[in-house]
């Protein structure tokens, strides 16, 4: 049933898609972490317009499918005068979508740091941004790591939507391999294995990490 000659014959195609999936996921990870942190800080500054902006962003993005975000960059932007290829639009969409979830995780982490920490930092003469960077964020990051690692697994899985905008990811190459070989079952089982190579170790790692952090606190 499982035809290994497919794996051997189309290995270069699998590899190209695999590497593109990793690349898109890494770019989106870094981008969504930066964007997510900014949004999270917006939501807790106490400056009302920034707070509203952050809340609206997170609530809106979290409640719509990722496909809409990706299609906005792929089909919507050209009518505003910017043309992106499938990989760029897909990665950008992935970044924006994931940033909303990361913002929530980081906000929860920051809020769980006791208030006295900020007050102590401020009264020893640090500015708001300094106390954020040197006192609050380093403590929050420990609580944020488990949900963040889950988000990264989701990110890798979600990167498969790139295939809908011809983003040259693993699923996209699977489609072209399938079109060439007609061995649908084998083609997609191997594709699934490539995804599992990425996600299973991360999932296992995050379990271990979670247990260790739970023990240490």
């Amino acid at each position, binding site marked *: 049933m499982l035809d290994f000659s497919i794996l051997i014959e189309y290995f270069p195609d699998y590899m190209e898609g695999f590497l593109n999936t990793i690349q898109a996921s890494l770019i989106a990870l870094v981008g969504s972490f930066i964007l997510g942190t900014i949004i999270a800080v917006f939501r807790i500054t106490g400056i009302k317009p920034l707070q509203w902006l952050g809340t609206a962003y997170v609530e*809106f993005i979290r409640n719509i499918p990722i496909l809409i975000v990706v299609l906005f960059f792929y089909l*919507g932007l050209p009518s*505003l005068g910017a043309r992106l290829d499938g990989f760029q639009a897909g990665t950008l969409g992935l970044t924006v979508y994931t940033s909303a979830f990361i913002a929530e995780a980081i906000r929860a982490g920051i809020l769980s740091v006791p208030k006295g920490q900020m007050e102590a930092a401020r009264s020893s003469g640090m500015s708001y941004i300094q106390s954020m960077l040197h006192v609050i964020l380093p403590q929050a990051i420990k609580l944020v790591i488990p949900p963040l690692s889950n988000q990264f*697994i989701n990110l890798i899985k979600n*990167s498969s939507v790139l*295939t809908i905008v011809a983003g040259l990811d693993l699923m996209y190459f699977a489609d072209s391999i399938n079109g060439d070989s007609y061995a649908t079952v084998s083609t*997609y089982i191997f594709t699934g294995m490539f995804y*599992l190579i990425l996600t299973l170790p991360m999932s296992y790692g995050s379990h271990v990490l979670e247990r260790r952090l739970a023990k240490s606190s």
Partner: protein
Amino acid sequence: MDFAGAYSPENLKFLMEGLGMTLYVAFFAIIFSFVIGCFAGVIRYMKIPVLSQVLAVVVEILRNLPLLLIIFFVQFAVPQISFFGIQFKFTIPVGAIIALTLFEAAMISEIVRAGLNSIPKGQVEAARSSGLGTVQTLWHIVLPQGLRRMVPPLVSQFISLLKDTSLAVIVALAELMHNAQIIMGQNHNYPIPILLLVAMIYFVVNYTLSLISRRLETRTV
């Protein structure tokens, strides 16, 4: 951008038909995945030998695969496999419901298992020592308390499911996103108005769900 053209009566009607299909598929997938997920979660909580280990492997694999792959596989690869001479073929909506159910049941089983595990051991010991059987303890003591804690993660899983139905565009299921894509293909001035409208539709449905969940949360705690 052409808002008036994009929001013509036929287009709106076509989108509403898509929404109908989205809700139809999501409704059945929610019910089936909840039932299957509960059974799988309870089996793993009770550590029933063999069955529990097999489920652990299946759940871990399903949870770590992209849903897009599962939807595609169920629709196009499964009909090519013969299970002891029997071949399964589904219509597109049925295939989408099966794929969504498989994936979400795996997610829900983990929520159920975590919810049951969060009930203090003393509760189980107390119930057992006052003469309740294993199943009675589960039914009368652990499940009622556990279910309450499961409500928020379950609702957010159902919201994910509703969003995830949009991935069935890959098998051309005639749901909201698919119909939106057809309309957007008619005219290059349509994408932004249509995407905004479709985003608002998903947002309203999902945000309502999350408000209900918050209401339930404050009431039960």
